[in-house]
Each structure stands twice: as C-alpha cells, then as structure tokens.
C-alpha cells in the first residue's frame, strides 16, 4: 500500500530528471549545462534511494552513495576546467 506511493514519487522524480535534460541540451552557456547536470545527478540519487525501498534492495543505496561522490568529483572537475585551472 505504502510502497505504491513511493513508486509514484520515484516516477515523478524520474520524469523531472528527464525533463531537466532539455536544459542540458539547450542551455545558452556552459555553466547552464553544468547546473542542469548537477541537478540531474541529485535527482538520480533521490530516485535510487526511493527505488531501493520499492524494489527492496539495500545495494541500490550504496550505489547511490558512490554515485553522489563521483558526481561531486565530476562537477568540481568541470568547474575547475571552466575557470581555467586544469
């Protein structure tokens, strides 16, 4: 019963992450695209945590933790590259 609500929330979160791809494609400047990418990563982490409850597997949360750390590294790297450091 309650799991159904979590599945609906996961679906809405996934649709929001898909809609954000539009800004990733059509962003006028490069920082716009980085903002969209960062938001998509956050939404995917939230989606993984919700789906771990829906599909009843704890492993997905561990994947979400590693995904958050890797997306953080990616964002920092692109930001450094943009300001001319790397």
């Amino acid at each position: 019963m309650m799991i159904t609500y979590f599945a609906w929330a996961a679906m809405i979160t996934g649709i929001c992450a898909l809609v954000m791809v539009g800004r990733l494609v059509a962003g006028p400047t490069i920082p716009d695209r980085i903002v969209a990418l960062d938001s998509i990563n956050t939404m995917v982490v939230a989606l993984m945590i919700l789906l771990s409850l829906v599909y009843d597997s704890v492993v997905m949360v561990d994947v979400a933790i590693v995904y958050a750390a890797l997306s953080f590294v990616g964002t920092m790297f692109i930001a450094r590259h943009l300001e001319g450091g790397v």
Partner: protein
Amino acid sequence: MEKVALIFLSIGVVFNFLGTVALYRFPDVYTRLHGTTKCTTFGSIFTSAAVVVFSLDMYFRTGEGRFTTLTVHVIIAILALLISNATGAHAIARAAHRSGVLPKYAVVDRLAEDHRKKGGVSA
C-alpha cells in the same frame, strides 16, 4: 508513522518539481543555480527522510534487521548529498563568474571591481 512518511514524501516531490520548473523559468545562470540547487537538495533530503521514517516504522513493526541497514545507509547518503551539493553549487557559481558569464540584468560587477582593486585574480 505512515502519515509522517507520506507528508515527507509529498514535500520532497513538490520541491523536486519546483526545482525543475526553476531550471526552465529563470533568466540566467545564477538565478537558475539558486532555485534549482536549493530546491532539489531540499526535496531529495525530504524524500530520503520519508524512506528513513518508513523503514524505521517497518523495523519496529516487523523486527527485521535489513530495515536498520537501509536506515543507516540512507542517512549516510543524505550526509553525502548535503556536503557535495552545497560545495558543488559554490564551485559552479565561482567558475561561472570567472569565465565571464554575467547576470542578465546586471549593470555593474562589484566583485570583479573588488578583485581588480586588490590586485588578485581577475574575473
């Protein structure tokens, strides 16, 4: 307990949706960053808090050990999300300013003037 989890889930989903709207409706990078990062961080924390509340409730009801594992791991994921989102947004804003992207309705750029006056890194 179920109602608390449902309220947390609703708040989180609404804020995630508002973050998506903010990404499309705002005019330039800085306002988009402001709206989107805050809304998606807040919403993701609340959906994860709903998972925490629900799995704690299931643990107290059934007594199975895997629900405590789920709770602890989700809390670790929330902490990672908190730290990495705030730092990443700061780095994006700094990189955007240094790469010469200005706000849309900007007239003056006090930060660049300040940097120039101090003789430090120019924007």
